[in-house]
Structure formats: structure tokens, C-alpha cells
């Protein structure tokens, strides 16, 4: 037996099931799907010296048009014949539409051939198969694609069922396990898509239907018909199984648009971007995924390209949000030449990775937060926003500006806040009752610093400040504490620092911090 034939007779496959979605005359339907199917139509290949018919619809076939005949002859047989060239772009779009529709039903899908999908129905109860198939048929019909759907216990039987549906002219054909032989008795041999030699042999034996062939003994078939006969016998008896080569979801996450004209202005470009984003978002939504980043590629008339990956703070499929993300980038981008093509791709999300903790608090809307940050940066500057974090240094006042965490750790939250999350009423929190988790305890009033400090003249008595004079504040010192000496960075040439701090209370003014750096006195800030 050939290696390609894989027999899998062991095990109970009563619950397994497959569907084959078959789009008849796929290439023709891809081109004609928006123009209706009420007229005879054919696709022709006019790249050769003599133009010939590649495929035609049923109306054209009734007038005697068939694949392979010259186009002139086809037009002579059917003067109303609508002739078109094949369109790879239309075929790609139609294939994605098929795939997108099928992903709305089950996740395991194989692109078996042009316009043919095989679906693994293991994720759905058998009782719902027929109804789901009808729903998919209607959805695709609304998009201009006429399909038939075959249901069976193996991929081969499902394909057979789809062929039977095509033959019988019905939408959905279900070849159930318990009535398989009975239904195969109704099907002619030609449906099995076997070679002409085998068909002739079987006809000579007097076999007219697939059911009759399936009733033969396997040994007799093997002795007389060899591998081809055994393969057909295994297919018909539901013993030929194969794993599906599953289609990747990423195929759905990309869209391409070639402009019919050169786009020089931003507005028409944004219009197309918005439309493409909406289509992509709708398509991806059916897969249960979302986008974590948008890749876009602009191709210019002078051959140059502009590619950019725009990351999203959180997976989303909100078309408005995605459009703002792309348009925000394009607003700042200078187009030096006309745009001729646009390609957009969504980076799919991993739903598990975005699972939030049960009680942890976090940003309600990360997208909105990112937008707010962008706008604030435009107002105050890029380096003036952040969540303050202490740095590993003794130099006073240094801090880093870290991004605000999207999730707040639960350890510093009060039990009241957790109770609130559990639906219990919250009670007021006393600041002092909070856990002193990270960092040393902080006492006393806060220091409010003057960023550059004010040069100050300090009158001393016995080395102790007596009076302070500066452009900011002046007064008599009524109480003092200090000095506290600190220094550092002496191991870095030119960065050494040394200071002596005094806390002084000025009469009727407040509490201030004075710093003596050796060369001068500075008023560094005040306590509040």
C-alpha cells in the first residue's frame, strides 16, 4: 500500500466530524460575486495566442460553453456570455472571505484547494452541525459567494458529501455514520473523483453506485483494483483519515490596497486607511483575537517605502482607536511622493497573556491613558511626565520617571479596598494606618524644593545661621537644626559633591532648608 494512504481503523471516532465548504467555480465567483449571477459568464485565458475558456457558470454551460474551448467559439454558442479575465486579487479577497466565515464557526480549518475548505468540527456538538452549516452558507451567500457544504465523519466523506450536494443542487448534505451505506447507494461513481480507468472497470463489473462498491470485501478490492481501489474503499467506509493542515489565523490579519491613482493628499489616504482598518477589525473579530500592534507599509510612486510598527498599550479591535493610532502617526509624517499602495497588518494578541489579576487595580482604559500621555507630552514636553521612582544614589532629590504601571500591586492596597472590590462597602482610610511596605517611613512635613535654589546671604553667629537674606525670603532665624553633612561621587572625576544642610525656622515665614555647598549658601526649599 502507498505511504500516502493512512488507515486509521483503531479507536472510536463516533464523535469526530468534518465539513467541506465547496465554492463551485471559485475563480469565476471571485470575479463575479458583486455583479450577480443571473447571466452566463466565463473566465478566459487570453495570455496565449488563442484565447480559451477557463471556466464557466451553469447558465453558460447550458448553452454549450465548456472549459477548454476557444473564446470565439464560446461566444458563438452563447452570444450573451460575459467574459472576464481571472483576478488574483479578487481570488485572494474571496479566499479570505471564505476563511473568515469559516473561522466564525470552528477554529480548525484547512485550505484544501482554491475555494475548498475542510473544517474540523470536533469543537462543536453534532446536533448543531447542520444549523451552523446553514448559517455559514447564508453568511457567504450574503457576501456573494455560493457554496455547498458537506458533512461527514472523515475529511474524505465530508468531501464526498459536498460533491453530492453539488450534484443534487442542495446547500448542505450530511452523510451520517448510521445511514452512510444507504446514502452512498444514491450516489453515482463519478462523485468519488476517481480516475477514468477505475470508473470504466467498475462500470464493466456492473457497479453503478458508491454504496455498491463500499459493500465489496476489502481483500477482493485489493486483489483486483490495487491501491487506487483500496483507497476508494477506505474513503467510502470512513477508514481513511488524515490530519488537517490548519490554516494560520495571520492570513486574516493583513490587508493590501493598491490605489488606482496616485494619492498626494493626506485626507484620501486616511479615508482608505479607515476603511481598510474597519475591514480588518471586522475580520479579526471573528477569530476571537485582537490586535496588539499595527504594522503599516506605504509604497510611494518613486519606489520608496515607509514602514512602521505602532504598538498598542492593550489588545483592541476598536476601529476608532486603531484609526487614531495610525492617523496620529501619519499626521506627523511628511509625504515626499505620492502613495501608490498601502499594506496593513495586525499583530495578533495572545488572550491568555492579557488576563488580569482577580483583585489588582489597574488602568480602566489603557488606550485612553496612552492618548492622554501623548497629548500631555505635547503640552509640557517629553521628559516631564512619569511616575517618580527613587534612584540608587545619596544625592538628594534625584529620581527617575518610570511609566505608570498598568496594574497596581495588591500588596499595598488596604483590606477595605479589597472588600470594596468584593462588593462590600468601603470605609475611610487613615493615612497612618497604611502598611509601610517599601522604603523607610517618612515623617514630618513634605519638602517643596526650588528647582535651582536661591542664592542666599546667611549671617552666622558661632557657625549657626542667625539671619537669612535672599530674593525669595528674608528673616530672622528663630530655630534651627543641623548641619547634616553629606557628599558623594568623589570616585567620578568632576562629579564630586558635598553639602551641609540646615533646617531653619524664620520668624513669621515658615521652615526652610538651607544648603551650604562650600562656595555659597542656597535656599533649597521649604517644608509644607
Amino acid at each position: 500500500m502507498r505511504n500516502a494512504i493512512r488507515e486509521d481503523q483503531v479507536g472510536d471516532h463516533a464523535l469526530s466530524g468534518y465539513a467541506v465548504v465547496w465554492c463551485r467555480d471559485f475563480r469565476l465567483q471571485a470575479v463575479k460575486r458583486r455583479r450577480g449571477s443571473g447571466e452566463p459568464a466565463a473566465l478566459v485565458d487570453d495570455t496565449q495566442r488563442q484565447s480559451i475558456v477557463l471556466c464557466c457558470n451553469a447558465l453558460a454551460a447550458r448553452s454549450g460553453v465548456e472549459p477548454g474551448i476557444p473564446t470565439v467559439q464560446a461566444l458563438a454558442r452563447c452570444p450573451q456570455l460575459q467574459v472576464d479575465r481571472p483576478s488574483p486579487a479578487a481570488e485572494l479577497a474571496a479566499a479570505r472571505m471564505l476563511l473568515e466565515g469559516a473561522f466564525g464557526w470552528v477554529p480548525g480549518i484547512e485550505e484544501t484547494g482554491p475555494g475548498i475548505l475542510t473544517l474540523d468540527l470536533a469543537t462543536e456538538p453534532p446536533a448543531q452541525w447542520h444549523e451552523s452549516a446553514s448559517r455559514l452558507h447564508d453568511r457567504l451567500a450574503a457576501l456573494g459567494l455560493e457554496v455547498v457544504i458537506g458533512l461527514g465523519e472523515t475529511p474524505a466523506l465530508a468531501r464526498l458529501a459536498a460533491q453530492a450536494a453539488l450534484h443534487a443542487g442542495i446547500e448542505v448534505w450530511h452523510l451520517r455514520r448510521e445511514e452512510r451505506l444507504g446514502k452512498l447507494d444514491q450516489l453515482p461513481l463519478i462523485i468519488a473523483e476517481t480516475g477514468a480507468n477505475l470508473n470504466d472497470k467498475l462500470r464493466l463489473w456492473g457497479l453503478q453506485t458508491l454504496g455498491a462498491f463500499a459493500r465489496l470485501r476489502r481483500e477482493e478490492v485489493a486483489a483486483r483494483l490495487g491501491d487506487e481501489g483500496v483507497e476508494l474503499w477506505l474513503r467510502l467506509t470512513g477508514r481513511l483519515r488524515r490530519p488537517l493542515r490548519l490554516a494560520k489565523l495571520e492570513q486574516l490579519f493583513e490587508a493590501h490596497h493598491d490605489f488606482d491613482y496616485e494619492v498626494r493628499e493626506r485626507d484620501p489616504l486616511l479615508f482608505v486607511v479607515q476603511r481598510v482598518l474597519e475591514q480588518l477589525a471586522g475580520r479579526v473579530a471573528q477569530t476571537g483575537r485582537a490586535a496588539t500592534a499595527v504594522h503599516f507599509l506605504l509604497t510611494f510612486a518613486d519606489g520608496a517605502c515607509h514602514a512602521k510598527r505602532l504598538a498598542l498599550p492593550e489588545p483592541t479591535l476598536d476601529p476608532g482607536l486603531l484609526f487614531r493610532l495610525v492617523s496620529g502617526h501619519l499626521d506627523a509624517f511628511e509625504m515626499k511622493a505620492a502613495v501608490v499602495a498601502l499594506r496593513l497588518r495586525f499583530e495578533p494578541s495572545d488572550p491568555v497573556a492579557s488576563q488580569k489579576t482577580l483583585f489588582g487595580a489597574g488602568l480602566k482604559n489603557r488606550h485612553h491613558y496612552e492618548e492622554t500621555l501623548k497629548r500631555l507630552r505635547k503640552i509640557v514636553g517629553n521628559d516631564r511626565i512619569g511616575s517618580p521612582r527613587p534612584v540608587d544614589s545619596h544625592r538628594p532629590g534625584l529620581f527617575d520617571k518610570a511609566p505608570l504601571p498598568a496594574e497596581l500591586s495588591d500588596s499595598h492596597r488596604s483590606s477595605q479596598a479589597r472588600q470594596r472590590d468584593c462588593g462590600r462597602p468601603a470605609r475611610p482610610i487613615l493615612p497612618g494606618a497604611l502598611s509601610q511596605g517599601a522604603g523607610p517611613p517618612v515623617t514630618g512635613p513634605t519638602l517643596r524644593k526650588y528647582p535651582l535654589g536661591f542664592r542666599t546671604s546667611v549671617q552666622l553667629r558661632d557657625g549657626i545661621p542667625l539671619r537669612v537674606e535672599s530674593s525669595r525670603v528674608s528673616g530672622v532665624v528663630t530655630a534651627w537644626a543641623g548641619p547634616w553633612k553629606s557628599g558623594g561621587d568623589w570616585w567620578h572625576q568632576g562629579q564630586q559633591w558635598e553639602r551641609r544642610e540646615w533646617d531653619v525656622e524664620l520668624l513669621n515665614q515658615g521652615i526652610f532648608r538651607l544648603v551650604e555647598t562650600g562656595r555659597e549658601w542656597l535656599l533649597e526649599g521649604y517644608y509644607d
Partner: protein
Amino acid sequence: MSVIGKSKSEALDSLRKQLGRQIKSGTVLLQEREQKTIRLVTGLDGLNASLGGGLPQGQLTEIIGRGPSRGGGVIMAALLSGARSEGRYVMLLDIGAGFSIGSFPEKDLESLLWVSCDSARQAVEALDVATRDENFPLFLLDGRDCDPSDWNSVRAQQWYRILNQLRQREAVAVIFARSEVTSATKHRLELVSRLALDDLHQERETILSRTRFQPLRRVVEEQEEQLRVG
């Protein structure tokens, strides 16, 4: 004609009487709304008492310290700490970049977004943008180093827009300043106590318990009185 006119005027009088019983006046509506305002309980007894239970959501609140060392910074730190324990994010709009990281417990900084602003006008512009974001229920505008005249550069309509946005998001904005900032503020408190050098080593709860607030006359009441006088 006169008969019709008489019946009309009687009908109008009757309608007015009925409406007068059913429709509330603007003052009554304002009072009712005031009573229904949801408040953010701060845990600071003095502040809560002065504000009628806590910081009113959807409102601007001014805390005024006429000079340094009145305790405004301690209140700010307490609000920050309370927000962190409740798992809420806080945005601090710091006019003059006087923020001193050593004055705040490290744990409280996790939920703080610090925005350094050059001027009152820039800070209010940033607040205008930020209050549209539902992620922040509490905004602290630190204008303690602002010259009182700086606030004049802010247009009144911008304050009212901010107020409207706060109402929509049920957020709270607290302004720390040296003097009155805007008439859009409904609650204004003055810090009347002073800190002494000994307080540098006191626990913050002790300082807060000694901090005294003087509720200034509420703006709404002022406006109503002006209307009455007018």
C-alpha cells in the same frame, strides 16, 4: 374677545399656580444637588468636616495656604497615600517642578503620575486634557509656588470646561495655592495653622491632627447673595 382673553388669563394663572407647586426653583435644585453629591472620604477628619464629609466628586476644591509651612504638602501626601491604598491613580500637576521624592513613601508613588508644568496656564491646559481620561479619579494641582497673578492668564471658560469634565467622570481635583484661584471652585479651604521646626520629627498623623482648616465662603453662596443683592 375679552371673554376669551379673560379665560386665557385665568387658565394661565391656574397653570402658574400648579407649576409653582410642582417645579422647584434653581436654589432648591442646587441645594438638593449639593446634598446628593458623592464625596471622596479622605480619612482626614478636619478636611472631611470642613468639606461636609469629604472631597466632592465632580468638583474643584481649593486648599489655600497663604505662605510656606501651612501643611498643604502633608495633606497632599495624605491624599496620595489614601488613593494608593484604595488602588486609585493620581495625577499631580506640579507647577514649578518643586516635587521632592524623599517626602513621599515609596509605595505611594506607584500610583502617581507626575507632570511638571512651567506655568499656571500650562498646568490648567494639561488638566483640561487629563480630566477627559477616566483612568484618574484624583487630580492634584500644585500651585503653591505660583504667583497669584499667574492664575489670571487662565480663561474662565477653561475652568468651567474642566469642571464639566470632572462631573462627567466623577473625578476630584484639588488645587493647592497661595490665594484664590478660580470662581469655578465650589469649596475653598484655608489652612490657618502653622508648622514649627519640631514638626520635622513628628509623625504625619500627628501633624494632620493639628492642622486647622478655615472654610472660606463658598462661591455658590456668594453668587446667590450677589444675585439677591442685585
